[in-house]
């Protein structure tokens, strides 16, 4: 039996009446003496797709679980459409959730899984079947409704889980690293599909991930978390080009940390004067964070020796050693392929750079 099918536009039936606004105000969460969230503030506009990005243990999943109601909070307020839901149990919050691990009910078929949330809302059987079929159609699995979880691949299981989360027309969709268990190709495909469906349905979505590429690719805004709080929130372009802190500069994208000298609004990096990004440390020795694509291979300039050059498909990344022994990553067009040991010269693009205090 062929499983290839054409999805039909069924978004109208599954779209919530309108996207809901979500707001977290000073949310604190303590676990047995450990403060996991230290006063998180987050505002999501109706229909917005926000990604929570951060390293393991930074509290991003705790934020999502607090919003879902799976975790109680120690202090603060959680507002959905202006209503404080901090004390509303998870089953009354009207949220849809897709989990990191495969969470399909193994004793139910895909269709029954998707119908489950509707059955809990006492939707009649005929409507239930139709809406579940529509939701499966939306994720491209209309013909696999009779299959059980063990008869589906990982990607298919997560798509059924997505259909199951969407079929109840929840106010908010919460995605807890739903792609992390999938292989690279399926991950990218499903990531794009989630974004497409989210855009069509206009559902407010919070997406937790530790994969920066994933976050930058799908979200309207990305919130970078560190040690229980949001370090910076902004559009993917903002985060990448105007990191507010050294942590964001190093965590989002690849950065070269280079010793520099700060004077007023100018940073002297490798002998070249560049504009300083935002506010930061006082004048004096600092660390400047220079993106690999802002370092150019030139005919003259800073002398360096090629250590290794890696082909990355549409571009090439080369590691070079400066005369003082420090290493830099340079990103350049794929046509230029410097050999290890080759002497090259570097120049810096005149773009603003983030800075941080240099500790002895």
């Amino acid at each position, binding site marked *: 039996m062929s*499983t*290839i*099918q*054409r*999805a*039909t*536009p*069924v*978004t109208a039936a599954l779209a919530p009446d309108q996207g809901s606004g979500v707001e977290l105000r000073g949310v604190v969460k303590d676990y047995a003496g450990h403060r996991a969230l230290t006063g998180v503030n987050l505002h999501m506009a109706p229909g917005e797709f926000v990604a929570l990005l951060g390293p393991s243990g930074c509290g991003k999943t705790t934020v999502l679980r607090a919003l*879902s*109601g*799976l975790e109680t909070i120690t202090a603060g307020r959680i507002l959905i459409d202006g209503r404080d839901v901090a004390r509303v*149990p*998870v*089953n*009354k919050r*009207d*949220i*849809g*959730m897709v*989990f990191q*691990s495969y*969470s399909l*009910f*193994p*004793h*139910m*078929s895909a269709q029954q899984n998707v119908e*489950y*949330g509707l059955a*809990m*809302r006492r939707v009649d059987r005929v409507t239930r079947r139709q809406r579940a079929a529509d939701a499966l159609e*939306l*994720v*491209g*699995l209309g013909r696999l409704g*009779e*299959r*059980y979880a*063990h*008869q*589906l*691949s990982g*990607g*298919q299981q997560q*798509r059924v*889980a997505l259909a*199951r*989360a969407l079929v*109840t027309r929840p106010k908010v969709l919460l995605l807890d690293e739903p792609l992390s268990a999938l292989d690279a190709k*399926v991950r990218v*495909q*499903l990531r*794009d*599909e989630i974004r*497409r469906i989210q*855009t*069509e349905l206009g559902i407010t979505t919070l997406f937790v991930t530790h994969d920066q590429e994933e976050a930058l690719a799908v979200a309207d805004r990305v919130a970078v978390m560190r040690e229980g709080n949001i370090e910076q929130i902004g559009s993917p372009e903002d985060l990448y080009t105007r990191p507010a802190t050294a942590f964001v500069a190093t965590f989002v994208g690849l950065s070269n940390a280079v010793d520099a000298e700060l004077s007023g609004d100018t940073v002297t990096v490798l002998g070249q004067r560049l504009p300083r990004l935002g506010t930061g440390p006082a004048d004096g020795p600092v660390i400047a964070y220079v993106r690999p694509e802002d370092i150019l291979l030139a005919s003259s300039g800073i002398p360096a020796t090629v250590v290794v050059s890696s082909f990355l498909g549409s571009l090439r990344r080369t590691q070079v050693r400066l005369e003082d022994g420090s290493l830099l990553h340079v990103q350049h067009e794929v046509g230029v392929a410097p050999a290890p040991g080759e002497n090259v010269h570097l120049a810096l693009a005149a773009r603003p750079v983030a800075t941080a205090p240099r500790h002895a």
Partner: protein
Amino acid sequence: MSVANAPAQNELAREIVNPLPRGRMPRVGIAPGPAARGVILGLAALFFLVPLIGLAEFSLRVGQPVDGRQAYGFLHVAELFAPATAGAYQLLFDGIGNSLLLCVLTIAIVLLLLLPAMILSHLRYPRVKRVLEFVCLLPITVPTIVLVVGFVPVYSVVAQLFGSPPWTLAFAIGVIVLPFAYRPIAANMGAVELHVLTEASRSLGASWGATLARIILPNLRRGIFAAAFITIAVVLGEYTIASFLAQNTFQTALVLLQRTDPYVATIFSLLAIMLGIVLLIVIGRVGAARPGTRASRRIR
């Protein structure tokens, strides 16, 4: 943007899981080949079948051997139901009745006390899980006779409250059944990611009751069945407690009967062993069945 114009979606739809054909399992590592498996199975079957065949042969004997030849028949089976011997086996039938009642009560203790405690500790109070496991496995380390010595003063109080009906044994047997009932349920819980399923159910709007009835219990079905069947096997085989607390159960009646009518005692021993084997086969079938397969539909 139209949903129909989503090539990635169609490409994703091509992922198909191709399960191995039924009965064809891949060889992994040092797994034995078909011939070696056959030999192992044959030897194991011989080990179990020889005593069973011996029991069957003995129970079918009629009279003494004449000229070295033994006659066989169903004489002893017929005696069980013959009007002339009516009442002679009443003690045995009462014992069987008592044991079956104990089976039901002990399973009820497992399902109404142990199972909820395990679910709660697994989902809500994980710190208690190790304590519960320790308590449940403890009886296996204590010899039954030691337990009985401890039970005697307890049962003197129980006797004052309820008298000494056989069903009161269910409390004591419930204790020795704990390790055997705990293990399959715990293994099942570990295998199905109960946490995630429960959270998924709750996030979809289900109350705790609905989650228990529609998600938790169906997914613990294998463990519950296994625990129940093992409980039956343990209750039907329990002798020491019933004997020391002066109760009439299947095993105690069988021991008494064996002194006066070894043929009938052998028939019932054989039946008890066969029941145990059938229960183990059913446990195996329940454990192996996956949803959506013919086997699972048969079990339902």
